[in-house]
């Protein structure tokens, strides 16, 4: 039985007071405790950004990697040790800007990891430039005349990429956030949770108030069927992405399950190994 205390670090996060990421941190810690995961059985891999610092605040095996590449690292961890619970976390710039390619490929591969994006629609760590999810027209340090671009739609991208679990949450509702993270971890396959996690310092548009006013809860929508991809695609459009809850869910084989027979049965993580004669023969038979 793990306890919340075990997952805590004796380090004060360097986030601004009020930053949405505090709730995500708390929700992850609570979720893994409630799922009774032990700290040593969990790997938390994060990208670079304010959000990316999260991996340093949870007492598990954690790696703070490169900007945009966290998912690739996380896939390597999971493929090398499928017994680990692997959570990957980062920001909107990290995941949908520089890292979008790995997002799409991890999703279609259905590697069994949970990917949590703290989507504050801004570049926090670099002090307030527009991000790929900044709304069209938004003024930021790098779009003083308003963002000229149409933003990335992470939910539709996840759908198109074949992600087998897609949900959206809000830092202002930790209970639902926790529940979605728990579902994501339990889901066998790639799960993606986009979290509206306000940046109180640089994003004065997409604030707690804004989300509180505009978000609808998907579960409360009559007739909504989260196993229907087409319906999921359309509801994103209808709600202008302003919802929380499970958008889509569907089970299919994970990459580990799809690999050729024998794969991953002897990863030599611990301990030593020496070549025996039969292995040697297998190795050289083609070359003699």
């Amino acid at each position: 039985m793990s306890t919340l205390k075990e997952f805590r670090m004796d380090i004060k996060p360097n986030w601004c007071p009020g930053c949405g990421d505090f709730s995500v941190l708390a929700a992850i810690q609570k979720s893994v405790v409630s799922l009774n995961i032990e700290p040593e059985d969990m790997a938390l891999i994060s990208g670079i950004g304010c959000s990316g610092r999260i991996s340093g605040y949870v007492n598990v095996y954690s790696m703070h990697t490169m900007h945009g590449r966290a998912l690739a690292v996380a896939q390597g961890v999971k493929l090398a040790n499928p017994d680990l619970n692997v959570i990957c976390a980062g920001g909107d710039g990290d995941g949908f800007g520089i890292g979008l390619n790995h997002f799409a490929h991890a999703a279609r591969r259905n590697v069994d990891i949970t990917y949590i994006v703290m989507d504050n629609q801004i570049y926090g760590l670099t002090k307030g430039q527009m991000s790929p999810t900044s709304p069209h027209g938004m003024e930021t340090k790098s779009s003083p005349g308003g963002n000229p671009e149409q933003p990335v739609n992470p939910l539709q991208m996840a759908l198109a990429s074949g992600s087998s679990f897609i949900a959206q949450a809000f830092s202002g509702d930790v209970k639902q956030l926790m529940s979605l993270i728990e579902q994501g971890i339990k889901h066998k396959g790639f799960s993606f949770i986009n979290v509206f996690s306000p940046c109180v310092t640089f994003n004065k548009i997409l604030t707690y108030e804004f989300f509180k006013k505009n978000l609808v809860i998907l579960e409360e929508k009559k007739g909504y069927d989260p196993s229907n991809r087409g319906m999921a695609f359309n509801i994103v459009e209808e709600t202008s992405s302003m919802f929380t809850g499970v958008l889509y869910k569907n089970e299919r084989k994970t990459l580990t399950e799809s690999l050729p027979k024998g794969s991953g049965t002897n990863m030599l993580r611990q301990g030593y190994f020496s070549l025996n004669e039969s292995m040697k023969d297998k190795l050289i038979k083609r070359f003699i």
Partner: protein
Amino acid sequence: MEELTIVIGGEQGEGIESVGEILTKVLSQMGFSLYGFRNFSSRIKGGHSDFNLRICTGKEIYVNAEKVNILVAFDKASIDLYLDQMDNSSIILFDSKSVKSDSFPLPKDGVIVIEAPFQELASELGSPIMKNMVALGMICALNNQSGSVFHQVIKNRFIKKGTKTAELNIEAFEKGYAFIQEKNLYSIPLGPVMNSKNMFLSGNEAMVIGAIAAGCRFMAGYPITPASEVLENLIQMMPEFGGVVVQAEDELSSIAMAIGASFAGTRSMTATSGPGISLMQEAIGLSGAIEVPLVIIDTQRGGPSSGLATKMEQSDLTAMLGGTHGEIPRIIISPSTVQEALYDMGTAFNLAEKYQCPVFIAADLVLATSKQSAEILDPLKFEMDRGKRVTDEELAEQGKVVFDRFAFTKDHISPRTIPGQKNGTHHATGIEHGETGHPTEDYKNREKMMIKRMNKIETATLGEDIKTEGNGEDLLIIGFGSTYGAIKEASEGFNMKGIKTGLAQIRLLHPFPADQLESLINKARQVIVVENNFTGQLANVIKQHISDHSKIQKLSKFDGRPFKPSDISNFCKELV
């Protein structure tokens, strides 16, 4: 004869590879020493391509010969390319259908030119593509080899296309064989074999075997010439050994996956060539900063940019040495023969885990793609050193404390735990960090951490960091990678002429064995650094470490072709 060189050339897709494979399989099993170089162009079909096979009864060989004894030409380009390498006892067999006999100048006296009905004879059997087996038959007959030993190998090769096809190919072989016998043509018999049983394989194949033998169980890669074979072979073989191989979406992902798998405790690697190394630079820096072991094969090819993807070059040395931003510890190993490529993988994984840093295998196109004879794999040479891995028992004893993954220690190497180990959780970040792994900007810590990381590799060694041969009093020839063969023969040539020549093939490119090299250089009157690049990258490294540049000369070749022994001896002749 003690040695013989056969070249088979034609357009890509004409079955040259099959001839080479069958021929070498048989000869290798008989115990001949072989060296085979594939010269190919970057188009898929068409474009000239040839296989240059050197066969030796005795000594080991690491480079092609400069004389060709038998040339089989399916296209005119083969003749154009090799005509001036014909000896006065050489034989040219050219395809009567695709090459006109008056389309090339007469070769020097003594060369026998035969208009060979490769296609014709194959067509008689219903399929002109079997011309390659006809040619194989002719080659065997010329060498006075018994035809029957080839039958089984031909059969094995074609059986997956049906017994009928296999039999037809044997027939084609026999037709070729008979053609030579009937004409009662010159035969070039090979002398008795002196070697024991060998493997015959390319550097790429050797690195694959070496990796698995070393306990590597994760590889992520992305196709790229000439490194794709490493990925392909590992994908094929790894499941049998319980590992996982992934073809990633790009090189950024490949190396990041390998870092993740290594963090998880599995010996992991990636393999790429030029453009891929460029894309990997950021992640190379991460693995250096977080002290995660990693093995990276860079099979160097013609650069820059897309460059000459199928041609030889050794021009990524500076990129391996200093391509990532900032400064990290790294180890760079340069195998110079296929046999070394095999065992260097074991060393590479051991050093990676011992020093907790990225280790490059600086291969090159010639090493990776040409095939050499090598001794049968010796499992004893793969003893595993997993470095400072903390055991579960030690962790249990230690109890629940903050695990100092980046502890300062006397040898600068910190004990390491892996996910799954209780009491070993820790944080790894590319930001500067303290002993616990958590970020800190404290300048004193920074200084200590840099010293720890950078200096820990100082003791790294391959045992033999510089491979030396001969006495270099008059002339010392320095190189790295596959140039070894050409340097060796050039150097042997000089020694036979009484010029005291030595070679120093640098096996450990970083940390650079400067002291050892300096004493070699001090003893020599002239020093030549031989390398396949423009700027003289190795020479520049040497000059960085060795004061007094006066006797150091560069010999650079950067036209895409490997060095021939005579390139080196001609250059040196002027000096000595």
